[in-house]
């Protein structure tokens, strides 16, 4: 069989790391001959320049430019660098592509995506309904569409509270005086609705998984975040084995019949001894390569599924006690590389 030719995105690391660079490392570990094409939205995405990074890089129009612009550019890229697998890694890309599987397939690309309804059911705005169905605790969460709505809802939730963009970014707001600025910024950046969520204090946990689309799990890796950045990003994490957390994730995946990669974010309310569901991301997290180093290659399993048409056998459980630390070093590039990407979209 010829080595796979893949297209993936999300190559930025740095302060707000994306999954692409970790995916490349995991995929190369299982498929050393893979030809990897990186789609970038900015010539400063650091993964472009990493050692053993993508074999080829192309600039893309932002997903907000719409499906027509996305596919027009994808056709240009496929004419230059044929590929058979597409792995979108960013929330905005998944939102764009989720109902366009025919367009993807028509181009000879294989891709695993949830359906549109399922994607909406796990969105921040619908999280409470899903959590209630699965008997999972969730902080009081309310979508708001304007400032007057934000003020009204905030009185019920009490401060401090989290203000969240519908796709990304969040701001902890301590009092009413900070509310308008946070809501306006997140609405301008990510559109409406903006989400207001009651704060839960406690240690944070994440679970990375692959759903088989029928309600089962191909693999699951649960971690406790051990070091948090100012933005709440996990700069360190350690694998755990808590049957309650595994069971909670199984209930969510069973209800959604989730197809493909996902990340569940939770906070443990230590006083109540209960996990609170914070978010479900419809994609791999930035720490996707960490479980590969513990023997559970989630990206490899996804590529195997796309090559064979069926999910491989279940991934091994990551034993408790393995930890990661996010390690930043400088990558090297030359201005000529930026020049090659500039002027089109990046």
């Amino acid at each position, binding site marked *: 069989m010829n080595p796979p030719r893949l297209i993936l995105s999300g190559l930025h690391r740095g302060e707000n790391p994306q999954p692409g660079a970790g995916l490349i490392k995991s995929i190369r570990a299982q498929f050393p001959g893979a030809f990897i094409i990186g789609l970038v939205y900015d010539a400063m995405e650091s993964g472009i320049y990493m050692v053993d990074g993508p074999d080829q890089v192309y600039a893309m129009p932002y997903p907000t430019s719409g499906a027509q612009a996305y596919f027009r550019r994808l056709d240009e890229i496929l004419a230059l660098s044929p590929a058979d697998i597409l792995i979108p890694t960013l929330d905005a890309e998944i939102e764009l592509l989720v109902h366009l599987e025919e367009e993807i397939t028509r181009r000879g690309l294989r891709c695993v995506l949830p359906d549109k309804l399922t994607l909406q059911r796990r969105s921040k705005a619908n999280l409470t309904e899903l959590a209630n169905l699965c008997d999972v605790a969730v902080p009081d969460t309310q979508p708001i569409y304007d400032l007057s709505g934000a003020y009204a809802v905030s009185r019920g939730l009490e401060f401090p509270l989290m203000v969240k963009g519908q796709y990304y970014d969040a701001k902890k707001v301590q009092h009413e005086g900070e509310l308008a600025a946070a809501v306006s910024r997140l609405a301008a950046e990510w559109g409406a609705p903006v989400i207001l969520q009651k704060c839960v204090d406690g*240690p944070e946990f994440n679970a990375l998984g692959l759903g088989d689309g029928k309600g089962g799990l191909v693999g699951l890796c649960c971690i*406790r975040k*051990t070091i948090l950045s100012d933005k709440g990003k996990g700069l360190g994490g*350690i694998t*755990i*084995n*808590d049957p309650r957390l595994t069971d909670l994730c199984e209930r969510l995946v069973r209800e959604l019949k989730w197809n493909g990669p996902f990340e569940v974010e939770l906070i443990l309310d230590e006083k109540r001894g209960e996990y609170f569901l914070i978010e479900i991301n419809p994609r791999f997290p930035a720490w996707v390569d960490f479980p590969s180093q513990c023997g559970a290659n989630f990206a490899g399993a996804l590529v195997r599924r796309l090559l064979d048409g069926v999910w491989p056998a279940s991934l091994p459980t990551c034993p*408790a*006690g393995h930890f990661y630390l996010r390690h930043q070093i400088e990558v090297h590039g030359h201005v000529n590389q930026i020049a090659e990407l500039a002027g089109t979209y990046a």
Partner: protein
Amino acid sequence: MLNDRGFAFDPTSGETFQLSTTGLRIVRLLQQDTGHEKILEHVIEEFEVEPNTASRDLADFLLSVKQVGWISE
């Protein structure tokens, strides 16, 4: 997991702990099903602590290990 240097890891919660020499000795005695009164005698004798102080510190320590779920009573 608990090693001889007093480093402990709880695989369910992901929490790590560093026990003092005294704490490590107490946990080892608990693992051997030693009763609390006997543990107190060990602490007083081995660490040369005044009985009232030892009793108070032992109670605090047992409460802490109960809170993290290492003992149930």
